[in-house]
C-alpha cells in the first residue's frame, strides 16, 4: 500500500506548478503565495553568500522581481524553487561584485586550501553540545564557523544540507558537475565538523578525546574536482 502511495505521490505534479500557471494567467495573488513560501529561504541563501544583511534584503527583492518578470522563460524542467534559487545565487554574486568594485566574483574562488580534507581533531563531542550555549551564543558560533569556509564550499553546503536541494539540483543551480558538488560538499562538511569540534568537544573525556589526538592516516583523494 505504501509503495502504491509513494509511486502515486511521485507522479503528482508539484503544487508550485499550478501556482506558476495561475501567475502566468495574471493572478498576482498566486505569486504572493509563492513569495511567502520561499522568501525566508531566499533571504538565508543571499545572506550566506553576501554575508551582508542589507545586500541580502536587496537580493531577496530583486530575485523575486526578476523571477516574476522572467516567468515566461521558466520551462518547468526543474522545480520553480530550484530556478528561483539559481536567480538568487546569481543576484548575490553580482551584489558581491559591486561591493568589490567590479572585481569578478565566482563560487570557485579560494578553493585551494587543504584545510579540512584530512580530519585532524578526532575528539568526540559532548552529548547535545548545543545545550552548553545560549541560542544567541550558538547562532554566533555557527555563523562565525560557516563564514570561515571558502565561498565555493559554503554555498554548496547551504544549498545541499541546509536548504535541502538534491546533489543534482545543487549542481544545476551552481553550474557545476555532480562530482564537483560531491567533492565540495565533503570538504565543507569536514571543515565545519573540524571547526565546530573546538566548541563542542567532550570536556571530561579520556586522553584520546583531547586536542592533539592522532591524525588519521588519510592521504589525498578528497581533492577538489571542477
Amino acid at each position, binding site marked *: 500500500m505504501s509503495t502504491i502511495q509513494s509511486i502515486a505521490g511521485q507522479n503528482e505534479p508539484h503544487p508550485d506548478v499550478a501556482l506558476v500557471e495561475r501567475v502566468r494567467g495574471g493572478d498576482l495573488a498566486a505569486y504572493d503565495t509563492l513569495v511567502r513560501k520561499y522568501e525566508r529561504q531566499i533571504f538565508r541563501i543571499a545572506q*550566506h553568500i553576501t554575508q551582508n544583511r542589507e545586500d541580502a534584503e536587496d537580493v*531577496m527583492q530583486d530575485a523575486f522581481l526578476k523571477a516574476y518578470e522572467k516567468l515566461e522563460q521558466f520551462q518547468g524542467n526543474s522545480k520553480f524553487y530550484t530556478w528561483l534559487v539559481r536567480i538568487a545565487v546569481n543576484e548575490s554574486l553580482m551584489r558581491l561584485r559591486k561591493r568589490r568594485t567590479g572585481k569578478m566574483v565566482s563560487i570557485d574562488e579560494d578553493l585551494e586550501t587543504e584545510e579540512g580534507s584530512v580530519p585532524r581533531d578526532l575528539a568526540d*563531542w559532548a552529548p547535545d553540545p548545543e545545550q552548553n550555549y545560549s541560542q544567541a551564543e550558538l547562532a554566533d558560533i*555557527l555563523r562565525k564557523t*560557516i563564514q570561515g569556509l571558502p565561498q565555493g564550499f559554503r554555498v554548496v553546503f547551504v544549498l545541499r544540507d541546509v536548504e535541502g536541494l538534491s546533489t543534482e539540483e545543487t549542481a544545476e543551480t551552481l553550474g557545476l558537475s555532480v562530482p564537483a558538488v560531491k567533492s565540495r560538499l565533503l570538504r565543507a562538511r569536514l571543515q565545519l*565538523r573540524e571547526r*565546530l569540534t573546538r566548541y563542542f568537544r567532550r570536556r571530561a573525556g579520556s586522553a584520546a578525546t583531547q586536542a592533539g589526538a592522532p591524525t588519521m592516516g*588519510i592521504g589525498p583523494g578528497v581533492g577538489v574536482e571542477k
Partner: protein
Amino acid sequence: MTCTEFLTILDDVIDESIAADTRAEIETHLRKCGHCEVILNTTRKTIEIYRCHEIYELPTEVSERLHAVIMERCKKAR
C-alpha cells in the same frame, strides 16, 4: 575497509546512498575504528545543527516590509 576508503564514501554513508554489501563492510570497519565512528557521528551532528538552527533571522516585521515591497514592484511590472 581502510580509514581512507571510509572517508571517500563518508558523504554516501551520511546520505544513506550505500549498497547493502558495502554497508556491511562499513559496519565492520566502524566496530573496530573509533576514529571513523567519531567522524561519522560528529559530521552528522554538524549537518543537523545547521539544519535545526536559524542563524540568519528574518524578523516578521522586516519580512512583512520586504514582502510588501516585492509585491508592489511586481504589480508595477505587470
